[in-house]
């Protein structure tokens, strides 16, 4: 187990280096410059700015300089567009916000998704199954901003339970967490239902019923573990995605998270910020997938890690 983790972390470093290199090349091959602004500046000022951000150096030198700065200390450099902030500071401010929103959204998605999925599978073909799966399909199909619009109309204007936006109080986080989590809940519900139906048709479930166990025991003790495996696989990438924030939800509810930076850094060619976010996302994705593999080994005794 320990060796497995060490090996996987080694691979992660290699992956991060590849991601760094590819991102570097891709970003520099986008036409335009981070310094090209609406207002034309004099060539002297532009030259000074380039020197200040070392953009006048050859690309190879920039590549190595950036890598040497990132590797020992994790120093991602200064943002080109957000004055007086280093990339590390931007992430340190935005990530906890996006992450706490994401964790709440996931908790909500898991609770609702698992419950709905299990009930639909056990009562398949019933009205409850049909209505929950219809809602789940709608949840997957509806974009975030539509769900956000609906809940804002309902719970801010018609029945003012929550503030329309902002950050810092518990009441601020409920609506955005719901909007962020809703598609995940829907997806988890469908995955759980499929997984559960698959397991319920297995011979060992018939054995469990033949032993005289109640339906509840059969489902919770004998069926649930196997049904959870597809959900666990889905959760790895889903957690990485949800923790790094969502542009749409954060914009609508005025939340100072990371989502906005992902888009802006790319559009404005803010090289260090974009690189920092890409590396953060890669690391999260890798760690989450590692956790998925570890949970597989815990859930299914037949899975051996090596």
């Amino acid at each position, binding site marked *: 187990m320990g060796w497995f983790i060490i090996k996987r972390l080694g691979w992660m470093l290699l992956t991060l280096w590849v991601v760094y290199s590819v991102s570097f090349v891709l970003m520099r091959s986008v036409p335009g410059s981070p310094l090209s602004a609406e207002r034309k500046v004099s060539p002297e000022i532009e030259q000074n700015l380039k020197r200040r951000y070392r953009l006048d150096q050859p690309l190879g030198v920039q590549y190595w300089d950036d890598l040497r700065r990132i590797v020992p200390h994790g120093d991602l450099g200064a943002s080109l567009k957000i004055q007086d902030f280093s990339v590390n500071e931007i992430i340190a401010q935005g990530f906890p916000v996006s992450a706490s929103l994401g964790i709440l959204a996931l908790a909500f998605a898991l609770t609702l998704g698992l419950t709905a999925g299990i009930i639909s599978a056990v009562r398949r*073909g019933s009205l409850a199954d049909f209505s929950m799966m219809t809602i789940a399909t709608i949840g997957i199909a509806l974009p975030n901003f539509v769900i956000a619009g609906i809940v804002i109309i309902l719970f801010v204007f018609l029945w003012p339970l929550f503030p329309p936006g902002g950050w810092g109080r518990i009441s601020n986080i409920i609506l955005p967490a719901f909007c962020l989590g809703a598609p995940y809940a829907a997806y988890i519900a469908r995955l759980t239902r499929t997984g559960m139906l698959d397991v319920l048709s*297995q*011979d*060992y479930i*018939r*054995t*469990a*019923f*033949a*032993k*005289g*166990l*109640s339906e509840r*025991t059969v489902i919770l*003790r*004998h069926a649930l*573990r*196997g049904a959870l495996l597809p959900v666990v696989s889905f959760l790895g990438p889903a957690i990485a995605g949800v923790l790094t924030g969502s542009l749409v939800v954060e914009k609508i509810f005025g939340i100072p998270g990371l989502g906005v930076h992902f888009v802006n850094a790319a559009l404005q060619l803010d090289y260090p910020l974009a690189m920092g976010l890409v590396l953060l996302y890669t690391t999260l994705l890798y760690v989450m997938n590692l956790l998925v593999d570890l949970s597989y080994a815990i*859930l*299914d*005794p*037949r899975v051996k890690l090596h």
Partner: protein
Amino acid sequence: MLLEVEDLRVSFQTDHGLVRAVDGISFSLDRGETLGIVGESGSGKSVTNLAILGLIPQPPGRIESGRANFRGQNLLTLPRRELQKIRGNRIAMIFQDPMTSLNPFLTIAQQLTEVTMLHRGWKYKQALDHAVEMLERVGIPAASRRVNDYPYQFSGGMRQRVMIAMALSCQPDLLIADEPTTALDVTIQAQILELIQQLQKEEGTAVILITHDLGVVANVCRRVNVMYAGRFVEEADVDALFAQPRHPYTLGLLNSLPRLDEQRGARLDPIAGQPPDLTNIPPGCVFHPRCPFRIDRCPQEVPALTERIDHRRYACFVDVQHQARVAVKENG
């Protein structure tokens, strides 16, 4: 009588129409008795027994009629909670494929102890001791260590032993063994059958043995029911059945077996035609389209499974033995 099944009818709603899987079955079983139910795949053997324990998913399944009296209670109308007290406790079941019948996610200990903890109200420690004892009795070596293993760590034959240990943990009155040896090697088959017989003798458990293997029946059972397309066509003591089959289907089954005393190179004599489509059962006797002894009456009337003057019970208008003797005479 331990179990008395009367006029059991089970059907399934499928995309191709209504399938009459079990079509008016009656049988009874004494304490400690072994009853064989023989028939080919899809003849309704398993469905009959799953229905008795209420293990048919409804829908698509439906129990249309019948009674199954077990120790004075009709299992078919018993509330679910009452039925759960009987399942695994008074009536236990083992299934065809031991590779898939045990839960791969739980240890043998977890799967064995939950039966006695549920039905006997035992604490885990006591249930675990009993589980180890049961594993020893079914011949699992180093049972006290292996009880903590998972099913994938056992071979097929060992898993079936575990299934038997689990089924017999509460000393049931009736063990339903649904093709218990079909998925196993021939040498293991014999061991498992021997084990079932031995435990049956020790515990006085009645056994219903469902199989398509006439050899298994000959070894283990005293009484046999031959099932075809959801109906019993013949019921007899095992020796009489093999010596003098009275229903054309039974005769066909026996003729299609390879025999040791036969000349080498002799061809097997299979039953002509295919088993009927259960969504569209032929009128009259279900076997008549494949029957070499068919007479005009067969497609019009259903022959009843009645007791004859020689105390044999079979559902046929024709005296097969007499016809066969005539045929032998005519051919010289």
